[in-house]
């Protein structure tokens, strides 16, 4: 059976959308990894779709992050909050991955032309190489309902 090529990330990949994450977690394609221990069950009684069919999970916040502070200031990495719904909060941290992770997918789709003969041979590509993840490893804790707008 033919070998399946795995292409490296495209040299020029720039996000078209501003990235809300701290600089350290930003990648050229914008992809990032968030890991939550256990499963995230929707606390919403009925799935309330946000715009374009997405399911809102909550808010991700880096309370100690200061974009203007020196890069060597890494204390902010130890505290990340994920507010889920109105009443729960997960606490997590930024972790450097032991080995960087390649985010891989099948290449092409419609544009199935490959370098070698254009037979539309199956190929994979690395979309991004990610060096950090945000990890939530604690149980959610209740938080007092904030003032909702």
């Amino acid at each position, binding site marked *: *059976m*033919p*070998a*399946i*090529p*795995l*292409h*490296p*990330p495209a040299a020029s990949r720039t*996000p078209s*959308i*501003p*990235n*809300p*994450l701290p600089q350290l977690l930003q990648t050229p*394609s*914008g*992809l*990032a*990894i*968030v*890991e*939550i*221990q*256990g*499963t*995230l069950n929707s606390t919403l009684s009925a799935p309330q779709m*946000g*715009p*374009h*069919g*997405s*399911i*809102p*999970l*909550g*808010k*991700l916040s*880096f*309370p100690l992050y200061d974009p203007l502070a020196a890069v060597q200031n890494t204390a902010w990495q130890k505290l990340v*909050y*994920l*507010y889920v719904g*109105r009443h729960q909060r997960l606490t997590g941290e930024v972790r450097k991955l032991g*080995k*960087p*992770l*390649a*985010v*891989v*997918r099948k290449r092409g789709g419609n544009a199935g032309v490959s370098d070698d003969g254009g037979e539309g041979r199956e190929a*994979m590509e690395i*979309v991004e*190489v990610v060096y950090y*993840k945000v990890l939530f490893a604690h149980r959610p804790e209740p*938080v007092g309902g*904030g*003032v*909702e*707008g």
Partner: protein
Amino acid sequence: MSTQADEGSSFSLLPEEGRQHFRLLELPPELLRLVVSERTILHFKSGPKTSEAGSNLEAVLCSPDKTFHIRQVNTSNSVYICQPTSHNDDDENPQPGLQAVAQSSWTLELSEAASLPSAAHYLKAALPTYSSTGTYQSKDPPASQQQIFDDIPVSQAECEAAWRDLACFELKNEPKGCFLPRPNAKVQVWRSILESATAAGVDVSRDPISPELIEQSVDRNDEDWPDELGHAMLDGVCDHEGMLDPGKWVRAVGLDLLAVEGARGLPASELLKKWRDALPEQWRKRVQVEALPRSEYTLTDDRKTITSAGAESGVAAAAAETKSTLGAKRKWHEKFRESKKAAK
């Protein structure tokens, strides 16, 4: 006053239908460098299942010259792959948010596959043979060299090295295809080359000497072994600069003779004599048992009898290879060794 609801960026999840299919693959430092700095294309390969390999041989990931075994590691955590989105709940004041576009419950981990069966093992299993009687085994349909390499879960460079070591060759004319020469064919060719070179007065002690010079001297009379085989054999005993390496040549002749004569053991002195006779005079002093790789023979009877370690048999050769790579920590490697012992 800022509230929890105001802090941070919105985090949403695409519903299942909209999600992308990503896999997460760990990159050891060497592959990271190849992918990021050198923009090398890697290759996923999977091999044919053989009974000798025991359980299914799973996919491997190959760099141009290294092979990495792939292991799927599951997690019970929810691992989300996210990207920025410009859409969030608050259409009046759209802030960039983060959206999980994929979820992966497993990661692919890589380990160097040193203890897997070698490319040589796979080539011996895959290739039809050519023997000294001029007989070609058939393989239907004939496969090209690259097709054969694609089927072997080992990197390209390792396949090419094994191909050279085994003096495999490819014929473009009938009978088309790739062939593995049996040792008896190679012994015939070594003797033929020696005769022709001697007759033509080619001085092999002249340093360096090119394969072309030898090829030009070869007069095969009625012998019908293919040019491609002679070329492959000479190629296999060249050094890095493409010049014939006396040490490699001497070793190759010895190994082929041992494979032909030594299946059931023969007096070491007899092997050494035949070996010398098959070599140019200037190289005969290099002949000694120790010039052969240790894994290829056993000496018994007070070192008087030498027996081939089963170069013909794929099973024994693979067993010898796995024995020489002790120290593999992973359980599945141990399972592999045990199943091989059972097979013997």
